[in-house]
């Protein structure tokens, strides 16, 4: 399905969900749960905690539907809620507002390898990164968010996000060189 068709479909489902249609919201859940769970799992490194975060995120999303602006990306909005949920569970409630933004028009940065790396090895190396570096890499490197957006989601300064991404690249390089413990 083309990206614009997905967005149109989401918009229609969100409208119905906003009017109390739980089945429409279930469809949104089925469509988006994989990505939301992937994001939570990589940030928490804990399957049980990730499942809790996913549940809480969708429940919060349901309750916050009246605040969602139809012209924005539901996926991005949902990911923001998921990241906020992970951060809350880590450290207690954060002050970050659930802001709604239009998707940016920037190209996604990509991190490439000259020699292919095994998927399992790469996942393990990412999992072993310190929390701050891992968060930045997962949001920017894996899920393609701009640094400004990732920083906003994480409640940190853009400069900090940049620094953490820089660290992540360096540490990832080190760990792939040595083989992750």
């Amino acid at each position, binding site marked *: 399905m083309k990206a614009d068709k997905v967005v149109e479909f989401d918009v229609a489902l969100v409208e119905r969900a906003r009017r109390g249609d739980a089945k429409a919201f279930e469809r949104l859940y089925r469509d988006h*749960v994989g990505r939301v769970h992937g994001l939570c799992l990589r940030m928490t490194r804990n399957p049980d905690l990730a499942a809790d975060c996913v549940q809480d995120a969708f429940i919060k999303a349901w309750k916050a539907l009246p605040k969602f602006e139809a012209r924005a990306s539901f996926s991005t909005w949902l990911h923001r809620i998921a990241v906020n949920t992970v951060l809350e569970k880590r450290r207690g409630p954060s002050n970050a507002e659930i802001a709604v933004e239009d998707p940016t028009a920037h190209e996604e940065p990509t991190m490439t390898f000259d020699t292919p790396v*095994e998927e399992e090895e790469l996942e393990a190396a990412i999992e072993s990164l310190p929390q701050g570096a891992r968060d930045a890499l997962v949001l920017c490197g894996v899920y393609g968010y701009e640094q400004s957006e990732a920083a906003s989601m994480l409640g940190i300064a853009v400069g900090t996000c940049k620094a953490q991404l820089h660290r992540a690249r360096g540490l990832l390089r080190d760990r792939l060189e040595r083989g992750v413990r």
Partner: protein
Amino acid sequence: MNRRLTRVDELKRDIPPGRDLWPAISAAIEADKAAAATPPVAARRRAAWLPVAGMAAAVGLVAIGVLIGLSFAPQVDTPPVANTPTYGSPEMMPAAYRNQRDALLIEVQAKLSSMPEVERKKVASSLATLRRSIDEIEAALGRDPANALLQELFVSSCQEEMRALTAVRDSGSQET
């Protein structure tokens, strides 16, 4: 099958959870819809729970104190079994220890209030965990005062509390 990747963003973004999470979400949604359908009294009750930032800030220090079980008055212990003084009660703990702890608590309160909120909550939560564990051991000692394991855990937990409080008090002391 272990794929070989040339880009980080080739990692799969979709990782389905190990079980279907929809039933719990659905139950919460139904509960939310039911709550929304109740008369306005419920809404007023809910509104009363909305965080009021100003009030929260004003009682912040008190909340921190409550959270980590701080008290500058002598501790009120649960009634001991028979007439045996409870291990750990003010009567049993050396005055020097109590005085040192009280002084440390004042400094820790000040340090906590200068921390960013998320860090403050994390650290305060840990200190509260420690205090609760000491209370739990103390309660068990109240029922079994001669238990050597409980005595050992009590002493080491008090020592650990002092270590943690000192670490918080001294944290960032070489900052610029």
